[in-house]
């Protein structure tokens, strides 16, 4: 009886240990698998040439990733510029000003916004943002725009990353002890001054981490940008031109890639690029966040 209990205990322990290691290994297996698959193109081409040329003719064997990399950067840049002020102000309101009841009302709103699937954002973007750009905004600046553009991708992405930034900043703000606010009030500072000069300065690393996390989320977002960005392989000349971010490239071409071996390798290289950048960004921001939250405990 005792022995069977101990055996069970040992078995359970091994089972749990193996699973824990397995889940850790997923990270390395994905990295390894992507490197292995994209090796032909990394080895075959000049590495810098892959990243800096923009000629994309898979059937002639020309693979230049510049358009896709730049598109991803433009779209993400616009998204962050739009999202950051709103996210920052909203999280300040929710953590510093809002009453308990307002909080109870607004936090679910933020959660719902983050729960809406990307494809719904895509549908919404094509219905509202795309026509808005092609009919109202773009005509002031350029001759013609379909609306499927860098700007459309940026706006849709901005809404998608707002909830993420808000919830992280609320969390870091709540880790700052009340004494620090009170110390500031006691020397005569107003609430506004306390927030700007004490709180935001204290949580600056946390805000930085939130931005990095949001950038990496925006880098990887696929289906929504695929639906509103237009997807032409030419370099975008203005924010009203269509663009072609990396994830959209992978999603659009996975079917035909089997026929040209090097094509498959090129698409896996795109996935590898995303993977490496996102893993780095996530690691950095998580380490910062862990430090920030521990500082006052």
């Amino acid at each position, binding site marked *: 009886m005792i022995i069977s209990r101990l055996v069970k*205990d040992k078995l359970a*322990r091994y089972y749990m240990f193996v699973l824990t290691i397995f889940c850790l290994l997923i990270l390395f297996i*994905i990295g390894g698998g*992507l490197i292995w698959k994209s090796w032909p193109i990394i080895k075959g081409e000049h590495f810098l040439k892959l990243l800096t040329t923009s000629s994309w003719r898979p059937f002639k064997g020309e693979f230049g990733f510049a358009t896709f990399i730049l598109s991803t950067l433009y779209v993400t840049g616009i998204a962050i510029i739009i999202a950051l002020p709103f996210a920052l102000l909203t999280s300040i*309101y929710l953590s510093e000003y809002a009453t308990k009841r307002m909080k109870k009302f607004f936090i679910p709103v933020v959660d719902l916004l983050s729960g809406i699937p990307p*494809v719904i954002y895509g*549908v919404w973007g094509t219905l509202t943002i795309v026509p808005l750009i092609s009919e109202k905004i773009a005509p002031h600046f350029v001759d013609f725009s379909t609306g499927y553009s860098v700007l459309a991708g940026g706006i849709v992405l901005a809404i998608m990353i707002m909830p993420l930034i808000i919830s992280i900043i609320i969390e870091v703000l709540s880790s700052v002890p009340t004494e620090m606010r009170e110390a500031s009030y006691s020397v005569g500072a107003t609430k506004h001054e306390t927030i700007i000069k004490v709180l935001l300065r204290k949580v600056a690393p946390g805000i930085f981490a939130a931005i990095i996390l949001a950038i990496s989320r925006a880098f990887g977002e*696929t*289906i929504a940008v695929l639906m509103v960005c237009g997807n032409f392989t030419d370099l975008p000349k203005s924010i009203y031109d269509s663009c072609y971010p990396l994830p959209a490239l992978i999603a659009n071409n996975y079917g035909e890639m089997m026929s040209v071996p090097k094509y498959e390798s090129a698409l896996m290289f795109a996935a590898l690029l995303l993977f490496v950048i996102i893993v780095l960004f996530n*690691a950095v921001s998580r380490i910062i966040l862990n430090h920030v939250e521990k500082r006052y405990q």
Partner: protein
Amino acid sequence: MRKAKNILFKILTITSSVFILTLLLFILYIIVRKGLPAMNWDMISKIPEGGFYLGKAGGVLNAIIGSIYLVGGAVIISILISIPVVMYLNFIIKKNSIFSRFARLCYDILFGIPSIVYGAFGFTLMVFFGIKASLLGGMITIALLIIPIMIRSIDEVAYMVPRDLIEAPKSLGATNYETLKVLVRQLLPGITTAVLLSIGRGIGDAATVLLTAGYTDSIPTSITQPAASLPLAIFFQLGSPIPEVQNRAYASALILTILILVISFTARYFSKKLSKHI
């Protein structure tokens, strides 16, 4: 002057919050307004019939059932994996040991990896093992996507379990394994929220299934057959030039949105209710 600035700043933060609320309402409004006129009973009770993609009769039952199968399978796989992992990190070894902390960092990073990378990896894996685009491939890939979500959200609850509760069963002579059986009740709110969160994420994700699950007009009868899914149904129908088909995309989007809303309200309800008596 300083007072004015103070008030102005407060108003600014309130405006921004109200703007975010308006944004949510606006998105929901557009989806409902576009989806409702195209909605009918056939949409959710019939699979596509002949000429469906030219605007003829039928519905997206294949996609609804496909999504449920895909996510159901993925959730079962990931529960079986994530609960033991969380237990190991928190109750078997010390929850603040270097290994635990390193593991948490890795799961956090996995959590941040976009679904398209999981999709590309799942696709490679399937080519490697010779599996065609199928329900099985989709389930495994979605499981990869939601395991980190589950681990992290159950872990948050497990981390808070007080030391005494872990030691009480042990002091009665229970083995580690038997202690864990007691602790499962403690984790229940965490597990429920984690499952609902994962369902929400899994059911709405298009990039993983696009590469791994394929698409079909019939309801799959075995896990080696391809399976349709709601996000892809929306995506493909929206790409059609025919207005009737596009309208169906809006109706499908409405179905998916309602599903997501129901899931997230249920999650909220359960996480409140179950955490009451602990």
